[in-house]
């Protein structure tokens, strides 16, 4: 692979993987959807 292609691929994939795992884990650890009636 071309050096630039490698950089783009790893930066892009790394960024979205980190964002996905970080936000999903934080979401799961949060409170469940509340069940109180409005």
């Amino acid at each position, binding site marked *: 692979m071309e050096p630039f292609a490698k950089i783009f*691929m790893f930066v892009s994939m790394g960024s979205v*993987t980190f*964002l996905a795992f970080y936000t*999903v884990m934080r*979401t799961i650890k949060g409170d469940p959807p509340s069940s109180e*009636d409005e």
Partner: protein
Amino acid sequence: MSQQPNEQWGTRIGLVLAMAGNAVGLGNFLRFPVQAAQNGGGTFMIPYFISFLLLGIPLMWIEWGVGRHGGRFGHHSVPGMFDVLTDRKKKWAKYFGILGVIMPLVVFIYYTYIASWMLGFSFFSLTGKYFGLGDDVQSRAEGVRTFLASYQDIGDTTGAGGFMPIIFFAITMLFLGWVLARGISGGIEKLALYGVPILFLFAIVLLVRILTLEPQAASAADGLNFIWNPNWSELGNARVWLAAAGQMFFTLSVGMGSIQTYSSYLKRKDDVTLTGLSTAATNEFAEVVLGGTIAIPAAVIFFGVAGATAIANNGSFDLGIVAMGTVLGEIGGSEIWGFIWFFLLFIAGVTSCVALASPTIAFLQEEIGMTRRNAARAVTALGIGLGLFHVFFLQRGVLDEWDYWAGTFGLVVFAALEVFLFSYVFGINRGWDELHEGADLKIPGFYKPVMKWVTPSFLLVLLTWWGWTEAIPKLRMEGVPEENVPYLWVARAIMALMCIVGVVLLKRSWARRNLG
């Protein structure tokens, strides 16, 4: 307002997976790699990520906020949500909101038909029906193409055999009807809890298999290079930027009405900022990491870069069905690998389909007073009835016509209207406060001006460009074969009739309840 029993999400992970299932669709695995390859490879990722930050994420948050806000007033479909965004002062808003019911219904109908092809090809993979239809790779690819054309041509018994598309379409539609009738937590959430992890598992297993294939015409690294190698001259090309912005709509399923309906089942203090971002990020993982590493590298390995370029230029289905069908027929355990590929596409399709049908079901419950079960039955019956129009007249271009107006251009029109209502009529300050009710994530402050100025400007540029270069020629049916013109007019008439019926039902319902 609604007389229906309150429905709600059972678990937070269920909600995230259902929203991710809505966003992750065929576009992630088929459209994204084709767009990247056609628009400068690695260079495409620069406007793509900028569009994600300035268009995709703000729209995602706005739609989550609009939905939860509407749900607080008992509205689970867009007309009522738009009405409360104007504090019930602008009577026209709810009529524009009907777009958020009819467009997803239109897309639901033809998208279900496309998803049913994937179910069909899962079955044909297990029976080995389309493998080995030639003496070499090129002729076998031609064999798969002929098989697909035969499958799509009702009555042609040379390939899959006659009426198989109708059978798979009916099975898919009835399955969706069954899921939808079981409600939010009992049907949609359960489908997501099982379906989305299976989808990701299948995609990861397939990705590993593709990347470990022996080089043939080229290697897997050449395939990745084909997608990611930047062509800097393309960075100044407006077409590349607009392609990247357009991909945001397809991949995140924004501008549709389904995100709003899903989030309307949240309570006032349920978070929308972190959860909205996590579904957008999950979708991006599925698209950039998984979608970008399966189909194009597989095609490059067996057809070389030049062959893969030709395949990519022929469109998503040539890549997803013809090229992938051929490639998976070349490796050991073809039946299983073919099944894994097409069944993962089927799951991606049906999890999106249930979201697309949800606004109409909510509308029928809310405005007609139907029970969820009856609303699901009505949507299923309508889906089968109108879907057969596509099944029988696919070759006439009716599916492409619906796809353009409801599934492409309509998304931008609807999103532009929604952002205008949220940022200017409801007010960006109120909107900002609304998004932060019960928020687990503080949205960075610069997103406030982005939502007010940048996102609407982005949408207006997109709308103008697409309107000028595509919508007007499409409206005039330029380049359409003469014999197809009557069919396209019928396709347009059906969409127009659906909008008229929606508006009439809405007007009567609101007049009956003295809501104006």
